[in-house]
């Protein structure tokens, strides 16, 4: 049995200054699955994620439910795909609920008022990310982990069927990393197609339904975590040797030394 992919890309190539940053990459995101995009620095993960989100020009095709993304109007695309960029930028000291409400922008026109549906979606997103208690606080007063959850809630508020998250766990402590990963998994379980760029191989192994491994612009492996993240492949792609430890939560990969 196979479920039709929600978002599918075929032979994506992104060239900048003559260099192929993403080279002939294919990726398909299935509803209900958490896909993790892994690979060393400079592998082209962020560029591929931005191409999937339709934010940059690329060769090849990205389709959403079979329709080419390039042909979709901007706002329709914004309702279909939520994108969470790296680094959680918040440029103004706005209130948390106002920031989460930005996720509803694709649903409103410039002159319409906030609807009950918007308010309900914002409340759901804040509850899912456990940030309801600080809805009325300014973003500048929150910790890094709280900001990361606000950013995710903003992306959730769109209630898009695809979520593309670029390093949502970067610079978070262990507990918040797990909270964010569990949240992404829950979103997928509720029916969204989720892809996240994750550097930590242990987290990838533990939470991914599927791993897409990139190196030097190419997708070098794609599939279930245990088949994809083999010690040999990790050695060749990341240049590290790993120890694999069996735990009650599944196998754990611990990098031991740089090769």
């Amino acid at each position: 049995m196979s479920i039709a992919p929600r978002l599918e890309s075929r032979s994506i190539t992104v060239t900048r200054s003559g260099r192929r940053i993403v080279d002939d990459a294919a990726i398909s995101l299935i509803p209900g699955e958490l896909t993790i995009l892994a690979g060393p620095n400079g592998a082209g993960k962020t560029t591929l994620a931005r191409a999937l989100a339709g934010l940059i020009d690329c060769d090849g095709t990205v389709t959403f439910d079979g329709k080419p993304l390039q042909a979709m109007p901007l706002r329709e695309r914004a309702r279909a795909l939520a994108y969470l960029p790296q680094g959680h930028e918040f440029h103004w000291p706005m209130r948390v609920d106002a920031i989460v409400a930005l996720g509803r922008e694709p649903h409103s026109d410039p002159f319409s008022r906030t609807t009950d549906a918007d308010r309900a979606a914002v409340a759901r997103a804040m509850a899912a990310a456990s940030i309801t208690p600080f809805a009325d606080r300014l973003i500048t007063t929150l910790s890094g982990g709280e900001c990361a959850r606000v950013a995710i809630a903003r992306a959730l508020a769109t209630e898009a069927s695809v979520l593309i998250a670029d390093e949502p766990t970067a610079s978070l402590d262990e507990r918040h990393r797990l909270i964010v990963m569990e949240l992404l998994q829950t979103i997928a379980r509720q029916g969204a197609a989720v892809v996240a760029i994750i550097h930590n191989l242990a987290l990838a192994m533990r939470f991914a339904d599927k791993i897409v491994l990139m190196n030097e612009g190419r997708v070098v492996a794609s599939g279930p975590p245990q088949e994809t993240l083999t010690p040999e492949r990790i050695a060749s792609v990341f240049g590290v040797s790993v120890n694999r430890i069996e735990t009650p939560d599944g196998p754990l990969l611990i990098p031991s030394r740089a090769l």
Partner: protein
Amino acid sequence: MTSSTPSRLLTLMLAALVVALTIVSLMTGPAQFPLGSVWKALVSDQGVETIIVRDIRLPRTLLAMLIGATFGLAGASLQGLLRNPLAEPSLFGAPQAAAAAASAIMAFGFASALSVAVPLGGIAGALLSVGALVAIAGRRASLTVTLLAGLALASLAGAAIALILNLAPNPFIALEIAFWLLGSLQDRSMAHVWLAAPFMVASWLLLALNASAFRALALGEDAAASLGVNVERTRILVVIGVALGVGAAVSVAGAISFVGLVAPHLVRRFYGSDPARVMLPAALAGAALLIAADIAVRLVPVPIEIKIGVVTALIGVPFFLAMIFRERRVLEDSTT
């Protein structure tokens, strides 16, 4: 767009303040008129009083209102686009560039002061300055790059003015340019109002179109684009909108600066930082500030009227320094 009841009340109060200052402005001058006679002079022919109110005070008051609103809105819009409360047209020489272009047209005899060529020249000058800044600031629009590029562009506009003064065919033109650069609303007629107003209104409309885009841009350009904002189009609309407004304003009133910095900052403490919500209040506050400044220059007991551009700079620059002082932690952090 949503606005809660208290902020709507505040906006109404700001609008009422603009109306009140407009009335005071019509009453104030070497000859003080009570409210009743101002009204009579406006609606019926009262001889000298009508000439003073209709032909001398009304044009300068309307220009102060229009230009103040234009600068307030232009400042709020640039700040929204660049996600930076220190962005202001005059910080990267937009008024100076507009003044240089407009004065060059007059200095070298291409057109008279009331020709539409003057505002068009001013708009072209502002377009170059604002367009260059937004292009250099680029996708990330970091504080350091924006401010350094602004400094360079302001210096370039200054150099262009120096060149025009240098090449001025006679000293009277050089003097005229020098006075223009001080910025003034003195001795303006309704012809000036009609010359500049259409461009300024067009600027307001172009800038207002971007309100929700500014709000989404609070999350950075990629996130805004993913929310359906056409970032490239927003950038172009803001550059053209600011250039139209600043160019037209400078063409009739000379280089008036810092209203675009002060007005949005003042309203932000009451309306919060939402870049869309501060736009209308910033325009109203800009209008109120400039009318108030224009009343003030008439009240200061000096033999020669102080130019309004001098007043706004004298208030604006210390204000800017205070803002830098308060934001210095952020400024020190932004190394990129």
